[in-house]
């Protein structure tokens, strides 16, 4: 194989631009359908259960251990310049601003994004999406829009729960392992955290919810070629959602940084 570098570079760039364009128009069409009536309430509720309720164990477990390890690690670092008392503050700020939304987003991308791509991809290759159209039902309205709406609405709630559980994890380690006074730990946490800390995390969460469901739906909807195609769609949904979460995490952080 003798492929000139320029050719490869050109092809990758073209594919990237074509993919971005296709995704953007997909998102536009889906959002339009999400706003316009009629709404499929049952579909939205089902997706909220799927994304929110059934993700609670995974996200809760991630949050509590992250909070615990955060307290322990910050102690190691902060003890070096006798700043152990800042641990409750470090835990709550890290969690609400950063780790809550990002880790919950990544976990949900793995759990929900994959399932969505697999479900919609299977519907595509078994012609169920064509069947929807022949029954005068817009698949964007029936399949995609409820998932996007559920993602945008549910992820902030999930992250709020994760924030609380994470802080509780930090509290457990702080009080029972590092010997903090329990009242002082909680007081430090509550006094220190600001509205913007929590709010910026929730904005991230809503945006990540959009990205995860968009990637799941897009890759499922455009999958082709049987079982292998669905498998690829699933992988692409998780990988692209994770990359987008990490990328946009920086830009949203930067936007709030200058506030």
């Amino acid at each position, binding site marked *: 194989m003798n492929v000139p570098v320029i050719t490869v570079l050109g092809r990758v760039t073209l594919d990237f631009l074509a993919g971005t364009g296709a995704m953007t128009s997909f998102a536009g069409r889906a959002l339009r359908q999400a706003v316009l009536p009629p709404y499929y309430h049952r579909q939205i509720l089902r997706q909220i259960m799927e994304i929110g309720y059934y993700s609670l164990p995974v996200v809760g477990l991630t949050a509590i251990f992250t909070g615990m390890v955060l307290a322990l690690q910050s102690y190691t670092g902060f003890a070096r310049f006798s700043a152990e008392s800042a641990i409750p503050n470090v835990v709550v700020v890290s969690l609400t601003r950063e780790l809550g939304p990002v880790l919950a987003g990544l976990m949900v991308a793995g759990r929900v994004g994959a399932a969505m791509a697999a479900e919609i991809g299977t519907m595509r290759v078994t012609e*169920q999406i064509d069947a929807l*159209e*022949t029954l005068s039902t817009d698949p964007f309205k029936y399949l995609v829009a409820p998932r996007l709406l559920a993602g945008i609405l549910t992820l902030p709630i999930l992250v709020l729960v994760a924030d609380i559980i994470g802080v509780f994890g930090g509290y457990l380690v702080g009080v029972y392992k590092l010997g903090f006074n329990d009242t002082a730990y909680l007081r430090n946490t509550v006094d220190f955290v600001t509205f913007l800390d929590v709010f910026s995390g929730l904005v991230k969460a809503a945006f990540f919810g959009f990205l995860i469901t968009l990637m799941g739906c897009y890759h499922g909807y455009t999958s082709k070629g049987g079982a292998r195609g669905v498998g690829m769609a699933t992988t692409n949904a998780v990988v692209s959602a994770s990359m987008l979460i990490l990328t946009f995490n920086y830009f949203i952080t930067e936007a709030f940084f200058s506030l």
Partner: protein
Amino acid sequence: MTPSPKISVRGLTKAFGPKKVLQGIDLDIASGESMVVIGGSGTGKSVLLKCILGLMRPDSGSIKIDGEEIVGLGSRQREAVMRKFGMLFQGGALFDSPKVWENVAFGPIQSDGMAPGKAHDIAIEKLGSVGLGPEIGELYPSELSGGMQKRVALARAIARAPEIIFFDEPTTGLDPIMADVINDLIVQCVRDLGATAVSITHDMASARKIGDRIGMLYEGKLIWQGPVGSIDRSGNAHVEQFIHGRADGPIRMQVRKL
């Protein structure tokens, strides 16, 4: 003067990259007629069907339903045209998570806004007309055999009393007896509804049974069409080879998938 055709296709072309799948199809189907399009795998039968259904946009040409041009319609107007259509997909394409009766009632409930109670009655009635009892309605599609799934899919296709019904390889994957049962049901349902039917198949027994007229698609063109009774006297070497299933003849097998 002959009445204007229910479906009128003129100069239809569709290509995927360099591969020209449909190369100028002209086809008229009269109201109440049952047209069967035969042809080997990869000759463009499915693409033709999907273009008429509006699931695919042709590159050029015109498709008229009741004299109304449907190529290039917006999504809202297309939904209105879809109301006239019913489609039986090859694999059934039943929705996994709703029950059987909800599958049949999907069109009436989701698109026509019918009350679920009334739609349930209609679903049970339609299941009855394909020979399935009301108890089947409470099962999930995955609990049914292939033949049963096809019956449910047929019930779903006729649930909104469509004017035109499309059948995509209705007997593929069924044993000969179940295939004949499905053929009988198709003939009966189409007759009861007074609908126009368009089927694609490579099963000659099925084509002879459900068709009034047969057209043969080869290399993106309709190379022959005529009444079902005249297919044995077509005088066309391609048709002869196809209906007798001979390996030798003018038809070369398609290697690449479309």
